[in-house]
């Protein structure tokens, strides 16, 4: 498998045509993985014909099915959106199209992004390409499985509490959650608006940087997007100098011992390159999951209120309009989404808001402050991306608390709005496992540069490459 820039060279030398690459990719769509909800072959074949010099010319890209592509159904893996075809594209989609990128299809997810395994989909679970009995992670599991199995060179996901980084870790890929506001959310179907960020899942840091350079930047349609200048994220040749990386002790508790050793191997490899490490402490880490749950559920309860069967999607007629809304929503949503809407409505109710939502908002500020403070001592934080490798399909579907466990590593970056990247740390048995780097706001380039450095020096790199190629 080649990088985006290598494909670009091959296209230039006419060693391969974009159509060849597309057909090869489409062939690799494996129905047993169930990575896609909608395959967009026709749109892709049309896209290949477009005459463009864009940086993504002819690159097959998979899109999580909660990001709108005009004219293609957006399902969010939910029955409630049955038949909904968006009349507009997300800003990221328009930017990719302008750069010549083409779309292989819309990938599977946990309904509306609510899950860590891509099992809670109306369209059935997605499987881990490394082991079909294991989950690919979630909620961007379809996007991870698509890239890991070779049907797309790179993909877009969304990350509200770790939904890009955790599947990247389970599938041996690089998953970036940019700073909140770095990438426009316009056209991303909202789950937890103050946490959601479109992210990228790719095979290597450079590919992720290439795509980030295309999609990042201010968008007047998203008032929360940042006007800060973007950087040349695709240029990762130089490793940041004079940097210090923190090891937060709380992130290494209650994790798989093998995960611990893999991440320590990464640390050693980086240390050899002359980068220093420092133990640090983030005492609020234990509050991340409850805080994340309260805020994301509260926002979700409001964001999902629009699915009422009145204007689009599933409608089940009832006795009056309130009954119609009740019936449509009852049949439209799966149990986990209902559970979160109920809890989210409760934590915002006048009787509970002070104790739950407002308290969570306060703790969120403390967590953010703690990250700000630690970044005065160190430039990056190194942690495991997930506490364990991919877990078996069906293991946690009835246990929402255990399902949330992986979020402990990742959701802090969402609460604080800071960038974080997950990248391969090696294998445990036949399953890949990732490390995570968390950075200062808008330091995506620094994060990707370190991942790039690890790719060059880490001893297991070839093994993962081989597994992906196979």
């Amino acid at each position, binding site marked *: 498998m080649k990088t985006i820039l290598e494909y670009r060279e091959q296209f230039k030398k006419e060693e391969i045509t974009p159509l060849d690459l597309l057909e090869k990719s489409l062939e690799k769509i494996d129905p047993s993985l169930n990575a896609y909800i909608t395959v967009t072959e026709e749109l892709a074949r049309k896209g290949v014909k477009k005459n463009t010099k864009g940086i993504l010319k002819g690159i097959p890209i998979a899109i999580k099915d909660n990001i709108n592509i005009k004219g293609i159904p957006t399902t969010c893996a939910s029955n409630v959106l049955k038949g909904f075809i968006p009349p507009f594209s997300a800003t990221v989609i328009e930017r990719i199209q302008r750069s010549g990128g083409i779309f292989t299809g819309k990938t599977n997810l946990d309904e509306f992004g609510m899950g860590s395994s891509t099992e809670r989909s109306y369209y059935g679970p997605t499987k881990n390409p490394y082991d079909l009995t294991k989950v690919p992670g979630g909620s961007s599991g379809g996007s991870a499985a698509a890239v890991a199995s070779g049907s797309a060179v790179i993909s877009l996901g969304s990350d509200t509490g770790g939904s890009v980084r955790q599947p990247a870790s389970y599938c041996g890929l690089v998953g970036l959650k940019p700073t909140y506001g770095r990438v426009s959310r316009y056209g991303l179907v909202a789950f937890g608006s103050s946490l959601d960020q479109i992210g990228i899942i790719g095979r290597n840091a450079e590919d992720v940087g290439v795509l980030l350079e295309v999609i990042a930047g201010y968008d007047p349609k998203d008032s*929360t997007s940042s006007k800060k200048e973007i950087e040349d994220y695709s240029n990762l040749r130089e490793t940041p100098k004079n940097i210090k990386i923190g090891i937060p002790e709380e992130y290494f508790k209650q994790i798989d011992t093998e995960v611990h050793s893999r991440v320590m191997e990464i640390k050693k490899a980086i240390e050899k390159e002359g980068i220093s490490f420092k133990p640090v402490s983030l005492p609020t880490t234990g509050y991340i999951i409850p805080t994340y749950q309260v805020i994301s559920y509260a926002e979700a309860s*409001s964001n999902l209120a629009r699915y009422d069967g*009145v*204007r689009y999607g599933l409608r089940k007629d009832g006795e009056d309009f*309130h009954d119609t809304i009740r019936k449509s929503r009852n049949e439209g949503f799966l149990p986990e989404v209902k559970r979160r809407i109920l809890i989210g409505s409760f934590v*915002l109710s006048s009787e509970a*808001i002070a104790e739950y939502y407002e308290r969570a908002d306060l703790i969120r500020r403390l967590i953010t402050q703690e990250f700000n403070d630690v970044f005065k001592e160190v430039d990056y934080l190194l942690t495991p991306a997930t506490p364990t490798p991919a877990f078996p399909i069906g293991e946690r579907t009835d246990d929402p608390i255990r399902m949330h466990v992986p979020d402990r590593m990742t959701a802090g970056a969402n609460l604080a709005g800071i960038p974080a990247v997950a990248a391969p740390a090696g294998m445990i048995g036949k399953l890949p496992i990732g490390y995570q780097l968390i950075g200062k706001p808008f330091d995506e380039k620094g994060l990707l540069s370190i991942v790039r450095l690890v790719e060059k020096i880490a001893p297991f790199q070839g093994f993962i490459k081989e597994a992906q190629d196979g």
Partner: protein
Amino acid sequence: MVEYKTTIGIEVHAQLKTLTKLFCGCPVSFGEGANTNVCSVCLGLPGVLPSLNKKAVELAIKAGLALDCKIHTKSIFARKNYFYPDLPKGYQITQYRFPIATGGKILVEGREIRIKRVHLEEESAKSIHEKDKSLIDYNRSGIPLIEIVTEPDIDSPDMAVAYLKTLQKILQFENISDAVMARAEFRCEPNISVSKEKGILGTRTEVKNLNSFKAVKKSLLSEIRRQTETLEKGKTVEQATIHYSEETQKTWVARIKEESSDYRYFPEPDLPPLLISQTWIDEIKTTVGELPVQKKEKYVELGLNEKDAKTISSSTTTSRLFEGILKIIGEPIEVSKWILRDYRSLGEPDISAENFAEMIKMVLEGKISRNAGAEVLAEMVKTKKAPKQIVEEKNLSQISDTNALERAIREVFEENPDELTRLKNGEKKLFGFFVGQVMKKTGGKADPKEVSRIISEYEKKY
């Protein structure tokens, strides 16, 4: 019967006069085909985000300033969550704990009504209920509104109507809202309670569905009666939403509020806090005029009678012109007469205060007659020419040169020796004859007053 004290507070929703909606670029219009002015944003389709209309913010600030409020440099949008088919997102974007303006007041018939808050919010769509189905028109969805809330400072239905009329006039005068009630651009929801004891408020009810000032007054009168009767029977008034029927002119309890609805307000995560610079507020402040009531009072102080002051102050055109002319030449009474008698009969056309002032000055200085002045005014409106030029072109200038006048009078005397003798012998009615002859001789350009003066001087000498 014990006397009951009435307490009324009013919420007004006014549509801001913008070209586009609050969070998208759809045009704001009235009476167009259903669902023609809609887009993904105001339909609340999955994936859309709001972008705030700057003009709406400007008008909300202006409304706050015109109502003497404190404008907050930081305000926060919130989501008000409830299910209704005409609410496409399942929540309304409004302002809750941190509104754009608070703590204002307006003068209504010499009394102060305190304004609690002014906040920005989006309009919902319009439901049309038919026999076997309901239809929804989303053209109104997302139209910018301000909600203006008073403190419970109103103590009678008449005062409520007076407040509403004053508020409406302010919004129209300042170009904040067209505030046409029939087009739902100005809607009011009074809440009302009666109580025996001073200082203790009764249970309040909220009156909805009011489409005219008449309905406001009648519904409040009906509600006072209903609440008083309830209390007189020894029962308690329940917190409720009250509807009013134009046909029967009666109020009835539409919905008892067992507990207040839980709208689960929380800060709107899709919009950062609204930050307004003091510079911007100051800039907008310069565009806020004096309020009609304040103007009226000022004009009365200048010596105008109540009626004239009210007439001139209630139209922006006349008040601006009046003040513009006053600045140049003073003479408020004289200027008010010109505006009320001559200018308004022309239909309040565009005219420069400078030209208008110059014309009045020429009359006051006796350079042209009053009649000639009216002619100049009409001509100025038609041709936009300067008064001096019109006077020259139409040869309207009065002969005030005493020598020239004396010469003309001498000639008239010489031409009419018999009449002169009769005048000298005391036949006073001939005085008019001579003035007329002089005017004729001068082609109407002489100042009649001056002519009379010289004739009465000369008759003795001759």
